[in-house]
Protein backbone atom coordinates (compact mmCIF):
# COMPACT_ATOMS: atom_id res chain seq x y z
CA UNK A 1 0.00 0.00 0.00
CA UNK A 2 1.12 3.51 -0.79
CA UNK A 3 2.92 5.46 1.90
CA UNK A 4 1.24 8.68 2.97
CA UNK A 5 3.95 11.27 3.57
CA UNK A 6 4.37 13.18 6.81
CA UNK A 7 2.75 16.61 6.50
CA UNK A 8 -0.11 15.39 4.26
CA UNK A 9 -3.60 16.66 5.15
CA UNK A 10 -5.63 13.64 6.31
CA UNK A 11 -8.67 12.49 8.25
CA UNK A 12 -8.39 10.12 11.20
CA UNK A 13 -10.98 8.06 13.04
CA UNK A 14 -11.15 7.31 16.73
CA UNK A 15 -13.49 5.36 18.99
CA UNK A 16 -14.33 7.82 21.78
CA UNK A 17 -16.45 5.47 23.86
CA UNK A 18 -17.00 1.73 23.44
CA UNK A 19 -20.62 0.56 23.76
CA UNK A 20 -20.10 -0.47 27.40
CA UNK A 21 -18.68 2.96 28.27
CA UNK A 22 -21.61 4.94 26.84
CA UNK A 23 -24.16 6.97 28.80
CA UNK A 24 -26.91 4.94 30.39
CA UNK A 25 -29.97 6.81 29.08
CA UNK A 26 -29.56 5.98 25.37
CA UNK A 27 -31.98 4.25 23.03
CA UNK A 28 -31.06 0.57 22.46
CA UNK A 29 -29.83 1.05 18.86
CA UNK A 30 -27.38 3.76 20.01
CA UNK A 31 -26.22 1.88 23.10
CA UNK A 32 -24.94 -1.07 21.04
CA UNK A 33 -22.66 1.03 18.81
CA UNK A 34 -19.54 2.97 19.84
CA UNK A 35 -19.30 6.77 19.90
CA UNK A 36 -16.98 7.54 16.99
CA UNK A 37 -15.06 10.65 16.01
CA UNK A 38 -13.39 11.97 12.87
CA UNK A 39 -10.84 14.77 12.85
CA UNK A 40 -8.66 16.27 10.12
CA UNK A 41 -5.10 17.54 10.31
CA UNK A 42 -1.51 17.16 9.12
CA UNK A 43 0.11 13.74 9.50
CA UNK A 44 2.99 13.78 12.01
CA UNK A 45 4.95 10.91 10.39
CA UNK A 46 4.81 8.69 7.28
CA UNK A 47 2.04 6.07 7.50
CA UNK A 48 -0.36 3.91 5.52
CA UNK A 49 -4.16 3.95 5.44
CA UNK A 50 -5.38 1.94 8.43
CA UNK A 51 -2.32 2.70 10.61
CA UNK A 52 -2.57 4.19 14.09
CA UNK A 53 -1.22 7.72 13.60
CA UNK A 54 -0.93 11.10 15.22
CA UNK A 55 -1.93 14.34 13.50
CA UNK A 56 -1.56 18.04 14.20
CA UNK A 57 -4.90 19.76 13.73
CA UNK A 58 -5.49 23.30 12.45
CA UNK A 59 -5.55 24.56 16.05
CA UNK A 60 -2.27 22.76 16.76
CA UNK A 61 -3.79 19.93 18.80
CA UNK A 62 -2.16 16.49 18.69
CA UNK A 63 -4.80 13.83 18.10
CA UNK A 64 -4.32 10.08 17.67
CA UNK A 65 -6.47 7.75 15.59
CA UNK A 66 -6.67 5.46 12.58
CA UNK A 67 -5.72 7.00 9.25
CA UNK A 68 -8.82 6.79 7.01
CA UNK A 69 -8.52 9.38 4.23
CA UNK A 70 -5.94 11.47 2.42
CA UNK A 71 -6.91 14.99 1.32
CA UNK A 72 -10.51 14.39 2.44
CA UNK A 73 -13.06 15.79 -0.04
CA UNK A 74 -16.53 17.25 0.21
CA UNK A 75 -19.00 15.02 -1.61
CA UNK A 76 -22.40 16.40 -0.59
CA UNK A 77 -24.48 17.78 -3.44
CA UNK A 78 -28.08 18.55 -4.43
CA UNK A 79 -28.98 14.86 -4.55
CA UNK A 80 -31.08 13.21 -7.25
CA UNK A 81 -33.69 15.35 -8.98
CA UNK A 82 -37.03 15.32 -7.13
CA UNK A 83 -39.73 15.92 -9.76
CA UNK A 84 -42.37 16.78 -7.16
CA UNK A 85 -40.51 20.01 -6.39
CA UNK A 86 -40.96 21.26 -9.94
CA UNK A 87 -44.72 20.68 -9.74
CA UNK A 88 -45.06 22.94 -6.67
CA UNK A 89 -44.01 26.06 -8.57
CA UNK A 90 -46.23 25.29 -11.54
CA UNK A 91 -49.27 24.67 -9.35
CA UNK A 92 -48.75 27.87 -7.37
CA UNK A 93 -48.30 30.06 -10.45
CA UNK A 94 -51.52 28.63 -11.86
CA UNK A 95 -53.46 29.30 -8.64
CA UNK A 96 -52.15 32.86 -8.47
CA UNK A 97 -53.08 33.55 -12.11
CA UNK A 98 -56.41 31.77 -12.52
CA UNK A 99 -57.82 31.60 -9.03
CA UNK A 100 -58.27 27.97 -8.03
Amino acid at each position, binding site marked *: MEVVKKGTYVQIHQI*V*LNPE*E*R*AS*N*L*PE*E*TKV*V*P*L*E*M*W*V*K*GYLNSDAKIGDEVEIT*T*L*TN*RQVRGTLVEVNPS*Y*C*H*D*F*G*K*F*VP*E*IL*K*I*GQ*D*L*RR*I*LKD*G*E
Partner: protein
Amino acid sequence: MADYSYNAVMARKNEIMKRAVGIDYSKFQTSRISFDYEKMMRETGYTLQEVQNIQRDVGVGNTPLIELKNLTALVRKISPKGKGARIFIKDEACNPSGSFKDRRAAISVYHAKKLGYKGVVAATSGNYGAAVASQAAMRNLNCIIVQECYDSRKVGQPEILEKQRKCECYGAEVVQLTVGPELFYTFLKILEETGYFNASLYSPYGIAGVETLGYEVAIQCREQLGKDPDVVVITHAGGGNVTGTARGLIKAGALNTKVVGASVDLTGLHMASDKDFNRKSFTTGHTGFGIPFATWPDRSDVPRSAARPLRYLDRYVTIKQGEVFYITEALAQLEGLERGPAGNTSLTAAFYLAQEMDEDQIIVVQETEYTGAGKHHMAQLSFARENGIDIRFGNPEDERAGESIILPEHPSLIKARDVDLFKLKKSYIKNCIDNYKVDEIAIKDVEFLAEDTKLSIEEVEKILTEINVKVVK
Protein backbone atom coordinates in the same frame (compact mmCIF):
# COMPACT_ATOMS: atom_id res chain seq x y z
CA MET B 1 -1.94 13.38 34.63
CA ALA B 2 -5.63 14.31 34.52
CA ASP B 3 -8.17 11.53 34.25
CA TYR B 4 -9.91 11.80 30.89
CA SER B 5 -12.43 9.01 31.43
CA TYR B 6 -16.08 9.82 30.78
CA ASN B 7 -17.05 9.97 34.45
CA ALA B 8 -14.00 11.99 35.50
CA VAL B 9 -14.47 14.65 32.80
CA MET B 10 -18.22 14.91 33.44
CA ALA B 11 -17.48 15.37 37.15
CA ARG B 12 -15.28 18.36 36.30
CA LYS B 13 -18.08 19.91 34.21
CA ASN B 14 -18.73 22.92 36.45
CA GLU B 15 -15.11 24.00 36.83
CA ILE B 16 -14.43 23.52 33.10
CA MET B 17 -17.48 25.60 32.24
CA LYS B 18 -16.68 28.35 34.71
CA ARG B 19 -13.28 28.81 33.09
CA ALA B 20 -14.66 28.51 29.56
CA VAL B 21 -17.58 30.95 29.88
CA GLY B 22 -16.09 33.33 32.42
CA ILE B 23 -19.35 33.73 34.35
CA ASP B 24 -19.87 32.83 37.98
CA TYR B 25 -23.51 31.85 37.78
CA SER B 26 -23.77 31.29 41.53
CA LYS B 27 -23.86 35.03 42.17
CA PHE B 28 -27.26 35.29 40.45
CA GLN B 29 -28.85 32.50 42.46
CA THR B 30 -31.48 33.97 44.80
CA SER B 31 -33.13 30.86 46.21
CA ARG B 32 -33.10 27.14 45.58
CA ILE B 33 -34.83 27.41 42.21
CA SER B 34 -34.86 31.12 41.48
CA PHE B 35 -32.11 33.28 40.04
CA ASP B 36 -32.08 36.93 38.98
CA TYR B 37 -32.42 36.60 35.22
CA GLU B 38 -32.45 40.31 34.41
CA LYS B 39 -29.44 40.91 36.65
CA MET B 40 -27.57 38.15 34.82
CA MET B 41 -28.47 39.67 31.45
CA ARG B 42 -27.49 43.16 32.64
CA GLU B 43 -24.24 42.39 34.39
CA THR B 44 -22.78 39.82 32.06
CA GLY B 45 -24.29 40.87 28.76
CA TYR B 46 -24.01 44.03 26.71
CA THR B 47 -26.46 46.89 26.23
CA LEU B 48 -28.46 46.99 23.03
CA GLN B 49 -26.36 49.87 21.77
CA GLU B 50 -23.09 48.08 22.50
CA VAL B 51 -24.42 45.02 20.68
CA GLN B 52 -25.42 47.15 17.69
CA ASN B 53 -21.92 48.66 17.54
CA ILE B 54 -20.17 45.29 17.83
CA GLN B 55 -22.36 43.83 15.09
CA ARG B 56 -22.04 46.81 12.77
CA ASP B 57 -18.27 46.51 13.09
CA VAL B 58 -18.34 42.99 11.59
CA GLY B 59 -21.08 43.48 9.01
CA VAL B 60 -23.76 41.70 11.00
CA GLY B 61 -27.39 42.85 11.19
CA ASN B 62 -29.38 45.59 9.48
CA THR B 63 -30.73 43.02 7.05
CA PRO B 64 -33.59 43.96 4.72
CA LEU B 65 -37.24 43.49 5.64
CA ILE B 66 -38.94 42.34 2.43
CA GLU B 67 -42.68 42.21 1.72
CA LEU B 68 -43.72 38.87 0.21
CA LYS B 69 -46.39 40.22 -2.11
CA ASN B 70 -47.07 37.09 -4.13
CA LEU B 71 -47.23 34.84 -1.10
CA THR B 72 -49.62 37.34 0.50
CA ALA B 73 -51.73 37.28 -2.69
CA LEU B 74 -51.73 33.48 -2.52
CA VAL B 75 -52.83 33.58 1.12
CA ARG B 76 -55.73 35.89 0.17
CA LYS B 77 -56.83 33.48 -2.58
CA ILE B 78 -57.41 30.82 0.06
CA SER B 79 -58.61 33.03 2.95
CA PRO B 80 -62.13 34.21 3.79
CA LYS B 81 -62.94 37.70 2.40
CA GLY B 82 -61.06 40.46 4.25
CA LYS B 83 -58.53 38.03 5.70
CA GLY B 84 -54.88 37.55 4.75
CA ALA B 85 -52.30 39.71 6.54
CA ARG B 86 -49.35 41.23 4.72
CA ILE B 87 -46.34 38.92 5.13
CA PHE B 88 -42.85 40.37 5.56
CA ILE B 89 -39.60 38.49 5.89
CA LYS B 90 -36.36 39.56 7.54
CA ASP B 91 -33.70 38.37 5.12
CA GLU B 92 -31.17 37.18 7.66
CA ALA B 93 -29.37 35.16 4.96
CA CYS B 94 -27.70 38.51 4.16
CA ASN B 95 -25.52 38.18 7.27
CA PRO B 96 -21.83 37.29 6.65
CA SER B 97 -22.17 33.53 7.17
CA GLY B 98 -25.75 33.36 5.93
CA SER B 99 -28.02 33.25 8.99
CA PHE B 100 -29.20 35.16 12.07
CA LYS B 101 -26.73 33.09 14.09
CA ASP B 102 -24.07 35.65 13.16
CA ARG B 103 -25.77 37.97 15.64
CA ARG B 104 -25.17 35.53 18.47
CA ALA B 105 -21.66 34.59 17.38
CA ALA B 106 -20.63 38.25 16.93
CA ILE B 107 -21.09 38.98 20.64
CA SER B 108 -19.67 35.70 21.98
CA VAL B 109 -16.55 35.95 19.84
CA TYR B 110 -16.09 39.66 20.61
CA HIS B 111 -16.32 38.82 24.31
CA ALA B 112 -13.86 35.93 23.98
CA LYS B 113 -11.35 38.23 22.27
CA LYS B 114 -11.85 40.94 24.89
CA LEU B 115 -11.16 38.48 27.71
CA GLY B 116 -7.98 37.31 25.98
CA TYR B 117 -9.00 33.78 25.02
CA LYS B 118 -6.91 32.35 22.16
CA GLY B 119 -9.84 30.57 20.56
CA VAL B 120 -13.51 29.63 20.71
CA VAL B 121 -15.30 26.28 20.74
CA ALA B 122 -18.95 25.62 19.95
CA ALA B 123 -20.96 22.41 20.01
CA THR B 124 -23.35 22.69 17.07
CA SER B 125 -24.30 20.92 13.86
CA GLY B 126 -26.14 23.95 12.54
CA ASN B 127 -25.68 27.46 11.22
CA TYR B 128 -24.20 28.57 14.52
CA GLY B 129 -20.96 26.70 13.74
CA ALA B 130 -20.51 28.62 10.51
CA ALA B 131 -21.33 31.85 12.33
CA VAL B 132 -18.76 31.27 15.09
CA ALA B 133 -16.15 30.21 12.52
CA SER B 134 -16.79 33.32 10.43
CA GLN B 135 -16.62 35.67 13.43
CA ALA B 136 -13.49 33.92 14.75
CA ALA B 137 -11.88 34.44 11.33
CA MET B 138 -12.67 38.17 11.50
CA ARG B 139 -11.18 38.47 14.98
CA ASN B 140 -8.12 36.27 14.40
CA LEU B 141 -9.13 33.62 16.93
CA ASN B 142 -8.78 29.87 16.59
CA CYS B 143 -12.04 28.00 16.29
CA ILE B 144 -13.17 24.43 16.90
CA ILE B 145 -16.67 23.26 16.05
CA VAL B 146 -17.92 19.96 17.51
CA GLN B 147 -20.64 18.38 15.38
CA GLU B 148 -22.97 15.44 15.72
CA CYS B 149 -22.81 14.43 12.09
CA TYR B 150 -22.92 10.72 11.26
CA ASP B 151 -24.87 7.59 12.10
CA SER B 152 -22.95 4.38 12.85
CA ARG B 153 -22.68 3.63 9.10
CA LYS B 154 -20.82 6.96 8.70
CA VAL B 155 -23.72 8.30 6.67
CA GLY B 156 -23.84 12.03 7.29
CA GLN B 157 -26.82 14.37 7.11
CA PRO B 158 -26.21 16.41 3.91
CA GLU B 159 -27.06 19.61 5.74
CA ILE B 160 -24.48 18.92 8.45
CA LEU B 161 -21.83 17.92 5.91
CA GLU B 162 -22.36 21.28 4.25
CA LYS B 163 -21.95 22.97 7.62
CA GLN B 164 -18.66 21.15 8.07
CA ARG B 165 -17.46 22.48 4.72
CA LYS B 166 -18.55 25.99 5.56
CA CYS B 167 -16.82 25.99 8.95
CA GLU B 168 -13.64 24.68 7.35
CA CYS B 169 -13.77 27.30 4.63
CA TYR B 170 -13.45 29.91 7.41
CA GLY B 171 -10.41 28.08 8.77
CA ALA B 172 -12.12 26.33 11.67
CA GLU B 173 -11.27 22.83 12.88
CA VAL B 174 -14.32 20.56 12.79
CA VAL B 175 -14.59 17.55 15.08
CA GLN B 176 -17.26 15.15 13.84
CA LEU B 177 -19.04 12.58 15.96
CA THR B 178 -21.63 9.89 15.62
CA VAL B 179 -25.05 10.25 17.27
CA GLY B 180 -25.25 10.61 21.03
CA PRO B 181 -25.48 13.10 23.88
CA GLU B 182 -21.93 12.19 24.96
CA LEU B 183 -20.86 14.79 22.41
CA PHE B 184 -20.82 16.95 25.52
CA TYR B 185 -17.97 14.81 26.92
CA THR B 186 -15.81 15.44 23.83
CA PHE B 187 -16.77 19.11 23.96
CA LEU B 188 -15.67 19.41 27.62
CA LYS B 189 -12.40 17.59 26.91
CA ILE B 190 -11.60 20.02 24.10
CA LEU B 191 -12.47 23.04 26.28
CA GLU B 192 -10.21 21.72 29.02
CA GLU B 193 -7.36 20.82 26.67
CA THR B 194 -7.36 24.11 24.75
CA GLY B 195 -8.50 26.60 27.40
CA TYR B 196 -10.65 28.20 24.69
CA PHE B 197 -13.89 30.12 25.26
CA ASN B 198 -17.19 28.24 25.13
CA ALA B 199 -19.19 30.24 22.58
CA SER B 200 -22.37 28.81 24.04
CA LEU B 201 -25.66 29.50 22.31
CA TYR B 202 -27.17 29.93 25.75
CA SER B 203 -24.90 32.50 27.39
CA PRO B 204 -26.18 36.07 27.98
CA TYR B 205 -23.89 37.19 25.12
CA GLY B 206 -25.52 34.83 22.66
CA ILE B 207 -29.00 36.04 23.58
CA ALA B 208 -28.09 39.72 23.71
CA GLY B 209 -26.88 39.28 20.14
CA VAL B 210 -30.38 38.33 18.96
CA GLU B 211 -32.05 41.30 20.64
CA THR B 212 -31.03 43.54 17.74
CA LEU B 213 -33.07 41.31 15.44
CA GLY B 214 -36.33 41.98 17.28
CA TYR B 215 -35.40 45.64 17.66
CA GLU B 216 -34.73 46.03 13.92
CA VAL B 217 -38.02 44.33 13.05
CA ALA B 218 -39.97 46.88 15.12
CA ILE B 219 -38.02 49.89 13.81
CA GLN B 220 -38.21 48.77 10.16
CA CYS B 221 -41.97 48.19 10.43
CA ARG B 222 -42.42 51.69 11.83
CA GLU B 223 -40.25 53.20 9.08
CA GLN B 224 -41.77 51.22 6.21
CA LEU B 225 -45.36 50.81 7.40
CA GLY B 226 -45.88 53.39 10.09
CA LYS B 227 -46.76 50.83 12.74
CA ASP B 228 -45.58 47.90 14.79
CA PRO B 229 -46.03 44.35 13.48
CA ASP B 230 -49.12 42.58 14.82
CA VAL B 231 -47.37 39.21 14.92
CA VAL B 232 -43.74 38.09 14.71
CA VAL B 233 -43.19 34.40 13.97
CA ILE B 234 -39.94 32.88 15.23
CA THR B 235 -38.52 29.42 14.60
CA HIS B 236 -38.12 27.78 17.98
CA ALA B 237 -35.48 25.20 18.90
CA GLY B 238 -33.20 25.91 21.87
CA GLY B 239 -35.15 29.04 22.78
CA GLY B 240 -32.52 31.69 22.00
CA ASN B 241 -34.16 32.93 18.82
CA VAL B 242 -37.51 33.41 20.58
CA THR B 243 -35.97 34.93 23.71
CA GLY B 244 -33.61 37.36 21.98
CA THR B 245 -36.12 38.51 19.37
CA ALA B 246 -38.88 39.02 21.95
CA ARG B 247 -36.53 40.98 24.22
CA GLY B 248 -35.56 43.17 21.27
CA LEU B 249 -39.21 43.86 20.46
CA ILE B 250 -39.80 44.84 24.08
CA LYS B 251 -36.72 47.09 24.08
CA ALA B 252 -38.12 48.80 20.98
CA GLY B 253 -41.39 49.32 22.84
CA ALA B 254 -43.41 47.02 20.58
CA LEU B 255 -45.38 45.74 23.54
CA ASN B 256 -48.54 44.75 21.65
CA THR B 257 -46.78 42.57 19.11
CA LYS B 258 -47.66 38.91 19.57
CA VAL B 259 -44.72 36.51 19.70
CA VAL B 260 -45.39 33.17 18.03
CA GLY B 261 -42.91 30.28 18.09
CA ALA B 262 -42.91 27.62 15.37
CA SER B 263 -41.20 24.22 15.21
CA VAL B 264 -41.17 21.38 12.72
CA ASP B 265 -43.13 18.44 14.12
CA LEU B 266 -40.78 15.47 14.60
CA THR B 267 -42.99 13.67 17.12
CA GLY B 268 -42.01 10.02 17.45
CA LEU B 269 -38.36 10.40 16.50
CA HIS B 270 -35.76 10.01 19.25
CA MET B 271 -33.03 12.63 19.05
CA ALA B 272 -30.36 10.26 20.42
CA SER B 273 -31.31 7.36 18.15
CA ASP B 274 -28.71 6.08 15.71
CA LYS B 275 -31.55 4.85 13.46
CA ASP B 276 -33.79 7.93 13.61
CA PHE B 277 -30.87 10.31 13.00
CA ASN B 278 -31.01 10.06 9.21
CA ARG B 279 -34.77 9.57 9.03
CA LYS B 280 -35.42 13.21 9.80
CA SER B 281 -34.94 16.03 7.32
CA PHE B 282 -34.53 18.87 9.80
CA THR B 283 -31.53 19.08 12.11
CA THR B 284 -32.86 22.03 14.08
CA GLY B 285 -35.97 24.17 14.51
CA HIS B 286 -37.90 21.04 15.41
CA THR B 287 -39.94 19.76 18.34
CA GLY B 288 -37.08 17.44 19.37
CA PHE B 289 -35.35 20.58 20.69
CA GLY B 290 -38.29 22.96 20.95
CA ILE B 291 -40.28 21.05 23.57
CA PRO B 292 -37.45 19.83 25.85
CA PHE B 293 -35.75 23.24 25.83
CA ALA B 294 -39.03 24.98 26.67
CA THR B 295 -39.84 22.62 29.53
CA TRP B 296 -36.26 22.50 30.83
CA PRO B 297 -34.08 25.35 29.48
CA ASP B 298 -31.25 24.62 31.93
CA ARG B 299 -30.43 21.39 30.08
CA SER B 300 -28.01 23.45 27.94
CA ASP B 301 -24.21 23.68 28.17
CA VAL B 302 -24.25 26.48 30.79
CA PRO B 303 -25.65 26.28 34.35
CA ARG B 304 -28.34 28.91 33.72
CA SER B 305 -29.55 29.32 30.17
CA ALA B 306 -30.21 32.88 29.05
CA ALA B 307 -32.71 31.41 26.56
CA ARG B 308 -36.02 31.15 28.41
CA PRO B 309 -38.77 30.94 25.77
CA LEU B 310 -41.76 30.45 28.10
CA ARG B 311 -41.18 33.99 29.39
CA TYR B 312 -42.01 35.39 25.99
CA LEU B 313 -44.15 33.06 23.89
CA ASP B 314 -47.77 34.10 23.32
CA ARG B 315 -48.42 31.09 21.11
CA TYR B 316 -46.48 28.04 19.94
CA VAL B 317 -47.34 26.10 16.79
CA THR B 318 -45.93 23.14 14.89
CA ILE B 319 -45.80 22.48 11.17
CA LYS B 320 -44.87 19.42 9.13
CA GLN B 321 -41.65 18.73 7.20
CA GLY B 322 -43.48 18.46 3.86
CA GLU B 323 -45.14 21.83 4.43
CA VAL B 324 -41.76 23.55 5.00
CA PHE B 325 -40.25 22.05 1.86
CA TYR B 326 -43.33 23.18 -0.08
CA ILE B 327 -43.09 26.75 1.22
CA THR B 328 -39.33 26.79 0.59
CA GLU B 329 -40.03 26.09 -3.08
CA ALA B 330 -42.87 28.64 -3.05
CA LEU B 331 -40.49 31.32 -1.72
CA ALA B 332 -38.11 30.66 -4.61
CA GLN B 333 -40.80 30.38 -7.30
CA LEU B 334 -43.10 33.23 -6.25
CA GLU B 335 -40.73 35.66 -4.57
CA GLY B 336 -37.41 34.95 -6.27
CA LEU B 337 -35.75 34.20 -2.93
CA GLU B 338 -33.94 30.86 -2.87
CA ARG B 339 -33.27 30.20 0.81
CA GLY B 340 -32.52 27.20 3.03
CA PRO B 341 -35.43 25.05 4.27
CA ALA B 342 -34.68 25.15 8.01
CA GLY B 343 -34.97 28.94 8.03
CA ASN B 344 -38.41 28.72 6.46
CA THR B 345 -40.06 26.96 9.39
CA SER B 346 -41.50 30.23 10.67
CA LEU B 347 -42.52 31.32 7.16
CA THR B 348 -44.58 28.14 6.81
CA ALA B 349 -46.38 28.89 10.08
CA ALA B 350 -46.89 32.51 8.98
CA PHE B 351 -48.49 31.34 5.72
CA TYR B 352 -51.24 29.75 7.82
CA LEU B 353 -51.44 32.39 10.57
CA ALA B 354 -51.83 35.18 7.98
CA GLN B 355 -55.08 33.53 6.87
CA GLU B 356 -56.54 34.10 10.36
CA MET B 357 -55.56 37.78 10.36
CA ASP B 358 -57.14 40.85 8.72
CA GLU B 359 -55.79 42.22 5.44
CA ASP B 360 -54.47 45.38 7.07
CA GLN B 361 -52.48 43.47 9.66
CA ILE B 362 -48.75 42.77 9.51
CA ILE B 363 -47.07 39.43 10.15
CA VAL B 364 -43.28 39.30 10.18
CA VAL B 365 -41.15 36.21 9.66
CA GLN B 366 -37.89 37.09 11.36
CA GLU B 367 -35.36 34.94 9.49
CA THR B 368 -34.11 33.29 6.35
CA GLU B 369 -30.92 31.27 5.98
CA TYR B 370 -28.48 30.61 3.13
CA THR B 371 -28.87 27.59 0.90
CA GLY B 372 -26.49 25.47 -1.15
CA ALA B 373 -25.35 21.89 -1.76
CA GLY B 374 -26.62 19.61 1.01
CA LYS B 375 -28.57 22.41 2.62
CA HIS B 376 -31.37 22.64 0.10
CA HIS B 377 -34.84 21.10 -0.16
CA MET B 378 -33.77 19.13 -3.24
CA ALA B 379 -30.82 17.60 -1.34
CA GLN B 380 -32.90 16.95 1.77
CA LEU B 381 -35.81 15.33 -0.08
CA SER B 382 -33.50 13.24 -2.23
CA PHE B 383 -31.64 12.06 0.90
CA ALA B 384 -34.93 11.24 2.64
CA ARG B 385 -36.08 9.21 -0.36
CA GLU B 386 -32.77 7.28 -0.36
CA ASN B 387 -33.36 6.52 3.32
CA GLY B 388 -36.73 4.95 2.59
CA ILE B 389 -38.98 7.90 3.46
CA ASP B 390 -42.20 7.94 1.43
CA ILE B 391 -42.44 11.31 -0.35
CA ARG B 392 -45.69 12.21 -2.08
CA PHE B 393 -48.40 14.81 -2.49
CA GLY B 394 -51.36 14.52 -0.16
CA ASN B 395 -52.69 15.93 3.08
CA PRO B 396 -49.82 16.88 5.45
CA GLU B 397 -52.02 15.73 8.37
CA ASP B 398 -51.10 12.18 7.30
CA GLU B 399 -47.34 12.80 7.55
CA ARG B 400 -45.51 10.58 10.06
CA ALA B 401 -42.00 11.82 10.90
CA GLY B 402 -39.45 9.16 9.98
CA GLU B 403 -41.87 7.37 7.63
CA SER B 404 -43.29 9.94 5.26
CA ILE B 405 -42.98 13.49 4.02
CA ILE B 406 -46.24 14.73 2.58
CA LEU B 407 -46.17 17.73 0.30
CA PRO B 408 -49.54 19.51 0.44
CA GLU B 409 -51.72 18.73 -2.57
CA HIS B 410 -52.96 22.33 -2.34
CA PRO B 411 -51.60 25.30 -0.35
CA SER B 412 -54.85 25.47 1.65
CA LEU B 413 -53.83 22.19 3.33
CA ILE B 414 -50.90 23.86 5.13
CA LYS B 415 -51.73 24.20 8.84
CA ALA B 416 -50.07 25.56 11.96
CA ARG B 417 -51.10 23.29 14.83
CA ASP B 418 -51.25 24.79 18.31
CA VAL B 419 -49.17 23.35 21.12
CA ASP B 420 -50.80 23.75 24.55
CA LEU B 421 -48.46 26.31 26.14
CA PHE B 422 -50.08 25.95 29.56
CA LYS B 423 -49.22 22.27 29.53
CA LEU B 424 -45.58 23.10 28.71
CA LYS B 425 -45.50 25.63 31.56
CA LYS B 426 -46.84 23.05 33.99
CA SER B 427 -44.27 20.59 32.77
CA TYR B 428 -41.48 23.17 33.24
CA ILE B 429 -42.57 23.83 36.83
CA LYS B 430 -42.67 20.12 37.53
CA ASN B 431 -39.18 19.72 36.03
CA CYS B 432 -37.87 22.48 38.33
CA ILE B 433 -39.25 20.65 41.34
CA ASP B 434 -37.85 17.30 40.18
CA ASN B 435 -34.44 18.56 39.07
CA TYR B 436 -33.79 20.67 42.15
CA LYS B 437 -35.21 17.87 44.30
CA VAL B 438 -37.36 20.09 46.51
CA ASP B 439 -40.71 19.34 48.11
CA GLU B 440 -41.32 22.81 49.46
CA ILE B 441 -40.28 26.12 47.97
CA ALA B 442 -39.97 29.75 49.02
CA ILE B 443 -42.22 32.57 47.83
CA LYS B 444 -39.16 33.90 45.94
CA ASP B 445 -39.17 30.70 43.89
CA VAL B 446 -42.87 31.09 43.17
CA GLU B 447 -42.31 34.63 41.93
CA PHE B 448 -39.44 33.39 39.75
CA LEU B 449 -41.55 30.57 38.30
CA ALA B 450 -44.33 33.04 37.53
CA GLU B 451 -41.90 35.29 35.63
CA ASP B 452 -40.25 32.36 33.94
CA THR B 453 -43.58 31.04 32.63
CA LYS B 454 -45.51 34.28 32.07
CA LEU B 455 -48.15 33.01 34.52
CA SER B 456 -49.66 34.74 37.55
CA ILE B 457 -48.52 33.89 41.09
CA GLU B 458 -51.96 32.33 41.66
CA GLU B 459 -51.66 30.10 38.60
CA VAL B 460 -48.22 28.90 39.70
CA GLU B 461 -49.48 28.24 43.24
CA LYS B 462 -52.37 26.23 41.84
CA ILE B 463 -49.99 24.07 39.78
CA LEU B 464 -47.74 23.58 42.83
CA THR B 465 -50.72 22.44 44.91
CA GLU B 466 -51.63 19.97 42.20
CA ILE B 467 -48.19 18.37 42.40
CA ASN B 468 -48.11 18.48 46.22
CA VAL B 469 -45.43 21.12 46.65
CA LYS B 470 -45.75 23.36 49.68
CA VAL B 471 -44.93 27.07 49.52
CA VAL B 472 -43.16 28.29 52.66
CA LYS B 473 -44.34 31.82 53.34
